[in-house]
């Protein structure tokens, strides 16, 4: 049963990736949007290199948050066209499987955005690129995608749900945003006093609580009967 679910998740993730890479224009526009946000931030705030370097972690995560929001909306939009979601449910797939597959494909796309946007920031804001950032990329995007998928699936079917998604999701993601920004900041500053631990713990707690909660609630939320 568990093994079958695993293969189902893999197949669905593969489907999402395939569809997204076949029509790359959305992914490209998402990355352009991220790049544009970086430009806008630097115009709106200041061009002083020292100041920009200081606030770069916050700007980075804001950019990721906004881009992920567009990702979430997109990922359910396609399923709603022509009742494809109902089709998936008719195959007898467990709502948990549907949730996990959507969560994983969103996670992969958020990580992809990060992997492209961050070097861009390094280039534009003269930051130092440290390999130890991979863990925070992973944990931060896991937090965003675990709750984002839940809320994205929830608001996708509503009339006027477009504005509800950020309204519901962003306040929930405040712990993730805070912890991710702090860890990125400390990592870039080489974390001399090793203050990262406590933020890592918070982030892991958040990720596990909401991943588990979302899986448990997916029966209720994703089964559209």
């Amino acid at each position, binding site marked *: 049963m568990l093994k079958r679910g695993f293969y189902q998740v893999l197949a669905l993730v593969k489907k999402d990736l395939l569809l997204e890479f076949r029509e790359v224009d959305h992914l490209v526009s998402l990355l352009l949007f991220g790049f544009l946000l970086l430009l806008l931030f630097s115009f709106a705030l200041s061009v002083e290199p020292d100041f920009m370097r200081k606030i770069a972690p916050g700007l980075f995560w804001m950019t990721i948050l906004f881009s992920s929001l567009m990702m979430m909306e997109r990922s359910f939009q396609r399923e709603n066209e022509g009742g494809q979601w109902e089709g998936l449910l008719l195959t007898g797939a467990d709502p948990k499987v549907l949730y996990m597959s959507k969560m994983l494909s969103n996670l992969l796309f958020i990580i992809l955005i990060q992997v492209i946007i961050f070097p861009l920031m390094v280039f534009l804001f003269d930051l130092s690129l440290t390999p130890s950032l991979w863990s925070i990329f992973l944990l931060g995007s896991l937090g965003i995608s675990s*709750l984002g998928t*839940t809320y994205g699936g*929830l*608001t996708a079917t*509503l*009339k*006027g*749900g477009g504005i*509800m998604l950020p*309204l*519901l999701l962003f*306040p*929930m993601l*405040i*712990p993730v945003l*805070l*912890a991710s920004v*702090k860890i990125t900041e400390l990592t870039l500053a080489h974390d001399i006093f090793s203050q990262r631990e*406590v*933020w890592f713990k*918070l982030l892991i*707690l*958040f990720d596990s*609580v*909401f991943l588990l*909660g*979302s899986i448990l*609630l997916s029966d*209720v*939320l994703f089964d*559209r009967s």
Partner: protein
Amino acid sequence: MLFKLFGAVALLFFAYAQYWALVRAPADYQMGDVYRILFVHVPAAWNALLLLTFSFVASLMTLLKRSATWDRLAHSSIEVGVLLTGLALALGSIWGRPTWGVWWTWDPRLTTTAILFILYLGALMLRRLIEDRERRSRIMASVSILIYLNVPIVYFSVKWWRTLHQVQSNPNTMDPAMVTGLRLNALALLALSLFFLIFRYRLAKREQINQEKEDSK
């Protein structure tokens, strides 16, 4: 009839509690009379937390029992809880201006309360968008469970982020008349909140009956 009587008694009780807050309790040795706003601010915050906790329990029960009664209870308690949270925020702000010198500060407790306020307001807005009753009750229960789980995490994260809200006083450091005034106010506000809760619950029931009548037409 009995319900109206309960409301009247709660209101009278609240007025009596204000007599303790405004007349019997002595002025604070530092803050003077300004502190008297806390007689409503603190009980509002307490009762808001109580009602929102109750809404969490009611949401769990909605999912477990699939009952419309628990759904209505959860909805009503969130509405009254949001009202009290807003009251606590507004009164705290009015008190903060003369005492701290600012209307607002990014202190953990304030920030957490503001986030809590927005989270539940969002949930109430979401509720209006879903028409099917069965589906609405399931979605609302899930969302409010998620929100309630997040509140302690938000609190700790904000606390580590900013470490001006005072440490709470305890009964030993306060004048006995102040303690009595505060307790009476807490109880009076609890009674009033219960009155609102039941009122909102009955209203929700009537709304549903109305809806069903319209649907069957």
